[in-house]
Structures are given as C-alpha cells and as structure tokens.
C-alpha cells in the first residue's frame, strides 16, 4: 500500500496540520474575557434552572405530604348515596361526613 495516492495525500494533510500546530499559539485577552463572561452567564442560568427545579420538587413534595396528613390524621370518610350514576345532576347530593 505504501506510496499509494491515499498515503501521499495523508502525509500532506499531516504535514500541513502539524505546521499549523507549530505556529505560535497565544490566546488574546479579549477572547479570554469573552469566555469568562459567557461562562459566568451559563453558570448563572444553570443555577437558576436548578433553583426552579428545586421549587417544583418542593411543591410536589408539599402536596403529597399534605394529602398524606389529610388522609391519615383527619380520616375523612365519604358516603356516596345510592344514586343513579348516569344522572350527573344527583352529584350534589353526596354527603361528606366527619369534616
């Protein structure tokens, strides 16, 4: 395979890219400054997202805890009268006892 057009092309690519890499590499102040600002912004956005997620979880947890407390400690019982289930207008007859 040695000496094929592919090998020659690959050698040229490697040489060309190595030359690019050996050029002096310095990052100027402006680039660094921009990166620092954008990174700070991205970190702030992430922090805000995390805070929002925490609030959602806290809300969900509070709702579940409130339901459990209500169900276990207040022990509500519902008596459903023997009404025709199809007649929706009878729904208001339902009684809620032991509130």
């Amino acid at each position, binding site marked *: 395979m040695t000496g*094929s*057009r592919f090998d020659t*092309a690959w050698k040229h690519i490697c040489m060309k*890219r190595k030359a690019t*890499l050996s050029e002096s*590499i310095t990052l100027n102040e402006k680039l660094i400054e921009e*990166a*620092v600002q954008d*990174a700070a912004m991205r970190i702030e956005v992430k922090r805000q997202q995390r805070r929002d997620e925490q609030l959602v979880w806290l809300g969900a947890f509070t709702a579940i805890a409130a339901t459990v407390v209500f169900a276990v400690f207040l022990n509500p019982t519902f008596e459903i009268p023997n009404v025709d289930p199809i007649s929706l207008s009878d729904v208001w007859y339902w009684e809620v006892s032991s509130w």
Partner: protein
Amino acid sequence: MPGRNEKIDELVARAISGDAEAWSAVLKEIGPTLEGIVRARAPRELVDDWRHEVLIRVLVNIKRFRSDSPIEHWASQIAVRTCQDLHRHQLRQKRKTPENKYDNQQLEAKKTNDYIADREIVELLLDQLEPEDRDLLIMLDIEQRSVAEIASLLNRSLSWVKVRAHRVRKRLRKWADQRGLN
C-alpha cells in the same frame, strides 16, 4: 519563588472558589494547549466558535476538577470531548442538508492525479468518520501523541486504541480506494 506548578495549583484553587480573575489567569496558562487541540480538529472557519465553546466548558466544569491529574490533562480531556460533540453536531447537520450530497458528488468527480484534489478528498473522508475515530487518527498521526496518552484522554484501554486505530485506518483506506485513490 513558587514554581509554575505551585502557581497553577494556587490559581486553580482560586478559580474553583469562583474567583473570575483566577479564571482568566488559568485560561492564560492552559490556553495554548486547548488552542492546539481545537486547531487540529475544527474546520478552519469554525476555529473561533469551537475554541469559545471549549473555554466555556472548561470554566463551567472547573469545580469538578480533582487535583489527582494536572489541570492541563483534565482540560485537554474536556477539549477533546467538546470537539467530538461539536463534530457530531456538525455531522448531523450535514446529513440533514443536501450539501452532503454535494460532498459525495465532489468526492466522485475528483478522480484525477492532482495531489491537492487527493488531499481534499481525504480531508472530506476524514470528516465523515465518527468523531472518536477521527480524533484517534488526529492524535496519532498529527499530534503524534503516545498510545498511552490517547487512551488516557479518551478514557479507553491501550489495546482498544491500537485495535481501533488499525480498523479506522483500514476503513479510511477502503473509502479512499473506492474513490480511486489507490
């Protein structure tokens, strides 16, 4: 007088605690290494964008840095991974657009003996490899890193690097053969 390593360690410690001045100083120290990685991988017209993304990701993740390896090595891993992500994104975009068809037509049309055309074909073929495979060849043949260093940067075993490199070279050569570059 503290040595370079102590100075960097101190800067990194300050950067981890969120000192923005230390962030700039750390980037100045490790910047050239990261720039080299980006230049070897990014298309010429996208070097600025890729570099910017790499620098940001290094800073955003700096709190996760554990000093069991040098900061340059840790940042290089992030740079390599970021370039792979960006290349993957670029490949996806390319596959969606009809430009890719144009690339294929270009590849077919250039069956001449012109070495510049050959080089362009191989460059295009290289860009069509999966990001990790492309990185492997770049690190081995262009950056001339050792197998151990590559394995550590890619989080792979030594044998994986050797076997994979062999397969990727074979695949690239096969693609080139199919395009008449034999």
